[in-house]
């Protein structure tokens, strides 16, 4: 099991829970599984193509990762919007 940690507003969409234990072997798997268990998140992290939205960053154990990054038991996955600004 990996532990996915969400901040607002994703936390609110996920039944107001910041931590979710999810069984998966890669980052993209964990995000898809999270959407399945928390359907209100559908479309907020991944787009229709199943791709992580471009301004959402996923960190595994504190390090920026990508969709294919492998997960191990007990890994901590943080889903965090990128820095905002410019307009």
């Amino acid at each position, binding site marked *: 099991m990996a532990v996915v940690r969400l901040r607002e*507003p994703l936390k609110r969409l996920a039944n107001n829970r910041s931590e979710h234990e999810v069984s998966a072997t890669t980052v993209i798997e964990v995000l898809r599984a999270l959407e399945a268990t928390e359907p209100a998140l559908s479309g907020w992290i991944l787009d*229709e*193509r*199943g791709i992580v*939205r471009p301004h*959402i960053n996923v960190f595994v154990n504190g390090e920026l990762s990508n969709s294919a990054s492998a997960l191990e038991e007990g890994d901590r996955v943080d889903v965090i919007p990128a820095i*905002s600004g410019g*307009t």
Partner: protein
Amino acid sequence: MTELLLGTRKGLLALEGEPGGPFEVRARAFPGETIDYTTRDPRSGRVFATVTSPFYGPKIFYTDLPVADWPEPDGPSFPPPQEVEGWQQASGVVLPEGGKLALKRIWVIEPGEADRLVYAGGDPGVLFASRDGGASFELNQALFTEPTRAGWQPGGGGLCLHSIATWPGDPDRLAIGISAAGVWLTEDGGRSWRQGNQGLIARYVPDNAPEDQIALCVHRIHRAAKRPERLFLQFHGGVYRSDDAGSSWRAVGGGLPSDFGFPLAVDPADPDSAYVIPLTADLDRVTPGARMRVYETRDGGSSWSARGDGLPQDHAYLTILREAFDWIGSGDQLGLYFGATSGEVFGSTDAGAHWFSVAERLPPVLSVSVS
């Protein structure tokens, strides 16, 4: 009392006031978010807001609460907490899962001509329909799988389906505009589509381009309610009129200071009347001569007259976007309202003869809806 709903770069603003004077901002929703479009469905009173979050993608939200009951949020909070503000996210506003395309933006919401029928148009050139008043939408598959789609090219703002011209009393007939994939027509409620581009001339392609050219940058379409086979169209260089329900078009932009622009309005009572707000050129998208003027035709585009009384006429470098011009009423009492990217909003209660300042110092105005 007149209500204006403004989609702005920094939230949805609901203004109210008596025509002729400045309006008051009654409520602000979605603070900090880009509201591409907002409107009130006059049948149900439901307010829609289309939001393109840079983080979370495009969404449609709706509320049935009166504006007076919209609480001012403490700060940025997206999505708005439903239990606090009454906004709900519409479902079904997505493209098929696992495909090659993702929805980028919802450009427009348009009430349909059947009970609880609501349309939404977006990028990449897609149409959604709701049959429950806008709570849930379905993608129009015929347009999405149109065989020519692979050749559709986006305009500067994307591959935007921005105009949905309904046919009064007939839910089966629609004309839609896509930048830059031209005009598309249906007579069977969206089960099939055909192009309606005959006569449109794109100056940005070679003059020997194929006649079935699709790369047509339509900027706005509106239908004349009293004569529904007539439509007006603002093109990327050119103002056009169709008298055969959009199958063919003829240029009617002669006499304008520029035939480039985005917004368009029509008088529901008079099929010969239309209003445009020209911009200098595609490479200089400000009001011509640094004067803010709306141009009116009362003869189907044969001639145009400037209407600028009350509008800034000195050093007025304004840009008015395609969804930022709306109207209410008809005839001599036609109310016209538009907003600029510089945060000014103007109105007229006499079909453009005189104008007044509705509001200023607002965020860039992306859409205007009056009711």
